[in-house]
């Protein structure tokens, strides 16, 4: 803000136009509800991506975090938040019905629920798995783990216990 006050008016106008352009062009993808300029978005239309893997995230920004890893080659679905009745957010406030419909259409072999490992994320994941599992589709969650480069000494007991629970054979 202070930076802008010290810049020429023309520069501020250019920025304002750019913001309006973004606002006009960016919309929700009708398949995954991520932010996009083209509908459906580039990920939903990319035929090289595995349509048999569907990753459910709370917010569109979570897609960007996961994409940065380049580790996931399936498709996404943005729920639009996490369950929190205290804040007036229940199944009806999230895109739950649409998710079940999408799963019905695409019949992925695996749904990965990538919500945060906090209380709301936990409940949201378990709730969704209650709805999805009866469809005969395998439902998985992100593993809890230790930060890479972290020291076992400094990991808190809860994270350590969770990573023990989620251990894998070598």
């Amino acid at each position, binding site marked *: 803000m202070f930076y802008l006050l010290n810049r020429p008016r023309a520069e501020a106008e250019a920025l304002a136009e750019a913001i309006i352009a973004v606002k006009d062009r960016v919309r929700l993808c009708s398949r995954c509800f991520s932010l996009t300029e083209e509908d459906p978005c580039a990920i939903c239309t990319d035929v090289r991506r595995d349509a048999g893997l569907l990753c459910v995230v709370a917010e569109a920004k979570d897609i960007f975090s996961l994409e940065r890893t380049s580790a996931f080659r399936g498709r996404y679905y943005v729920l639009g938040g996490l*369950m*929190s*009745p*205290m804040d*007036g*957010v*229940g*199944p*009806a*406030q999230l895109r739950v019905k649409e998710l079940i419909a999408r799963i019905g259409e695409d019949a992925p072999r695996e749904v990965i629920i990538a919500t945060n490992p906090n*209380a*709301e994320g*936990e*409940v949201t994941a*378990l*709730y969704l798995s*209650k*709805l999805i599992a009866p469809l005969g589709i395998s439902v998985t969650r992100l593993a809890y783990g230790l930060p890479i480069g972290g020291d076992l000494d400094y990991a*808190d*007991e*809860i994270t350590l*216990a969770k990573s023990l629970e989620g251990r894998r054979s070598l």
Partner: protein
Amino acid sequence: MRLTGLTLADVRNYSALEFEPVPGVNVLAGPNAQGKSNLLEAIGLLGTGKSFRTSRESELIAWGMPLASVSGTAALAAGTVRLACTLAASAAGTRKIYTVNGGRVGYSHYLGRLRVVTFVPAHLQLVGGPPALRRSLLNAALSQESPAYYAALANYAKHLAQKNALLRGGVSPDEDLLATYDERLVASGTAIVLARRAFIASLDERASPVYRRWAGGADGELHLGYAANVPCDVPTADAVAAAFTQRLADARFAEAQRKTSLVGPHRDDLEFRLGERALAAFGSQGQQRTAVLALKVAEHATLEAYAGEAPLLLLDDVLSELDAERRRAFLEGVAGVEQAFITSTGAVDTPVAATFSVRAARVERVA
């Protein structure tokens, strides 16, 4: 464990204090309103990050100052640790900053390093007061003892608040969502129940002989019992979880009707019995007081047994609550603890490790 040095800056009536306690019993003596309880409260804050006197933590900041800070060095079995807890008043409430050995940490990494068992006169309400008082005693002790208990408690509280919002109609009713909350409550609630069951069994075993020693046999045996809301007289964790799940299923209709959750360890209680009778209903004032002190001694011994090292014992105005006979018995009982702090308005007649005079926020060793 032992506190070896304490520094206060703008805490209550202390603008600046350096205090070097000794091993064993430290008596803080002085007339009323000099800062004895404030000093004890500061030690409790260093250990637990909380005040034993108030939930409005901004009251601990010296009047007119922006920050209060307590720091100290403790000798633990695992080595020396430096702890600090700073309170900062802001429009949004009091912010707390914790450090361990100079590094900033979250509360769950701070709690439990320097453990304390506290007695304040308000604890005399423990026998006759509301169950929430007794649950908070259990929670305070077990949270210091085990990070897993603290995590289960925090998790339980969050899911319970969400479930209650769902039952109140915060969002439209959804059976699957309700079932999800119940499953989470069973998972964290079972851990809470099992920890409380073991802890109370140990309190009971240790408090009875202490009470007998102080009161003689005539009163009858003191017993502490776990009045668990979820029946937990079954051996395994799975069986407790199954009983909890069953209780939730049975209560489902009533919970929907009353729009609140009715089942779980948030409704637990700790019972005091003398012989066959409930102490709250039939005990004299003196019997209740003796029972609370026996409970505190048992809490100290249990935490020591759990961790393999003794927590600090913080006793505010405990002596004025006892007659001469019980006071002597009590002081003899605590004389052997690794470290204790006792406030007193008068001189203490049994030998102690050190006596400090507290006058107008100045603390000086006098004996």
